[in-house]
C-alpha cells in the first residue's frame, strides 16, 4: 500500500491534500481494493516521513468523504459498502480536478472559452473516437 503513495513535502500543495488526492486516485483506479486495510497513521507518517497529525487529518477527511472507514482498534479500511459508487465519485473528483487545472491554464495564457471548447472537442475526438 505505501508503494502507491508519494508526497512531495516541498510542494506548495498541503501534504494532507496530497495524501487525500492519492488515496482517492488509488481507490478510483482499483489499486486500493474495497475492504483493503490502510497503514496506521503512525506507520504512514513514518513511511512518508511526515507529521502524524497531518496524516490523521487526511484520514479524517477521507472518512468524512466516505472513502475509508475506521474500526476502533482494528484500523482503517477502504470502504466496502457502496464501493462502486465511492470509486466512481473518487474518479470523477480526480478527473474534475485535472480538467479544472487545464482550463485554468488555458485561460491564464489568454485563450477564450470558444478556443478552450475547441481544444476539448479535439481531445474528446482523440480519446473517444467511437463516440464521435
Amino acid at each position, binding site marked *: 500500500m505505501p508503494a502507491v503513495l508519494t508526497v512531495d513535502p*516541498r510542494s506548495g500543495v498541503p501534504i494532507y491534500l496530497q495524501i487525500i488526492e492519492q488515496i482517492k486516485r488509488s481507490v478510483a483506479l482499483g489499486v486500493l481494493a474495497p475492504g483493503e486495510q490502510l497503514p496506521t497513521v*503512525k506507520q504512514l507518517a513514518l513511511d512518508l516521513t511526515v507529521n502524524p497529525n497531518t496524516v490523521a487529518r487526511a484520514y479524517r477527511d477521507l472518512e468524512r468523504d466516505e472513502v475509508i472507514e475506521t474500526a476502533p482498534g482494528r484500523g482503517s479500511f477502504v470502504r466496502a459498502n457502496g464501493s462502486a459508487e465511492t470509486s466512481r465519485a473518487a474518479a470523477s473528483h480526480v478527473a474534475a480536478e485535472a480538467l479544472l487545472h487545464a482550463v485554468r491554464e488555458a485561460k491564464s495564457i489568454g485563450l477564450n472559452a470558444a478556443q478552450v471548447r475547441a481544444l476539448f472537442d479535439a481531445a474528446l475526438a482523440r480519446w473517444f473516437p467511437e463516440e464521435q
Partner: protein
Amino acid sequence: MSISIERLTKRYGKFTAVEDVTIEIPAGSVFGLLGPNGAGKTTTFKCMLGLASATSGTTRYDSKPLTPQLFEELAYVPERSALYEWMRAGDHLEMQKRAFKSFSAKRADELMQLFSLDPRKRVRNMSKGMRTALSVVLAFASEPRIMILDEPTSGLDPVNQRSVLKLIIDASAQGATIVLSSHQIGQVERAADHIAVLKNGKVALSGAVDDLKAGSKIVEAIFESDAIALDGLANDTRVTRLEKTGRILRVTVRSGGDDVAGELSSRGALSVRVVDLNLEDIFLNAVDSGIQTAEVVEAVQ
C-alpha cells in the same frame, strides 16, 4: 501537553533578544520555530525552560507554570552541546538514567547503534555531528511528554538527519509535544504541523503549515503595457508583497489568491496565474521586508 508562551520579552542590557512573543503550541503538535540567525529562537527556548529569566511574560504548560517535576517529562537538545568534554558517551547515558525514571537502557543502546556511536568515546574526541547525535540519543532514550529541540540535526549527514526526523515523528505519534528549530526548512516542512517565524525577536508569522500553504500564493499577472493600475493593492490586507517588473505584476497573498486573480483579470490583465508557495517561500517572504510598495521594489531592480 499544550504550551502557551504569552507576551515573552527578554532583554540583555539594552539589547532586546525577544520582544512580546506570544505563541500557542497545541498539545501533541510538532511546532517548528523558524528564523534567521539571531532572531531569538534559542533565547525563546531558554526562557521557556527557565534557563534564562524572562524580562516579562510567561510560559505555561497545560496552563501551569514550569515546575521541577515537569523536568522529569521534558527533554531538551540545546543548540550548543551541553555535554562534558572529559566524559565518555556512556557516562552521559548513566547520568541520564539517574535523572529520568522513564529512561530505557535498551532504547539508549538501539539509538547509540542507530547513530553508530561508541559509548567508550570521550566527548572531547567527538565531531560536531557525533555530539548532536549523542544529545539526540539522551533526549529520546526516555519518553518525555515535551521535547524542545534546538537544531537537533546540525552537523549530521543526510542519513542521520532522516533518522532524527523519524524519531521526532515517532515521538509525536506517541503523543509528545515537540518544539523544534532548524535551518533546514525542508525538515520542518515534513515534521511540523505548526510553525512560527521569528524576525528580530518578534513573531513575523505563525499558523498551521497546511493552512499557510493553502492560503499563501503568488498571483502573477501580465498586462498589455507597463502602466499597471495598482491603486488599493498595497493596502489590501490579503496582500503581503507587490513586485512589478515591466508588464509583469507579482502579488504575494496570504489568502484569497483566486479572488485577487479575478480582480487582476478585471483590471485588464492579459494572463493571470496563481502559483503555490512552499514553506521556504513563505518563510523567506515573512523575513523579507514584508509589505513593499511597487515603487520600492521597482527601484531595487
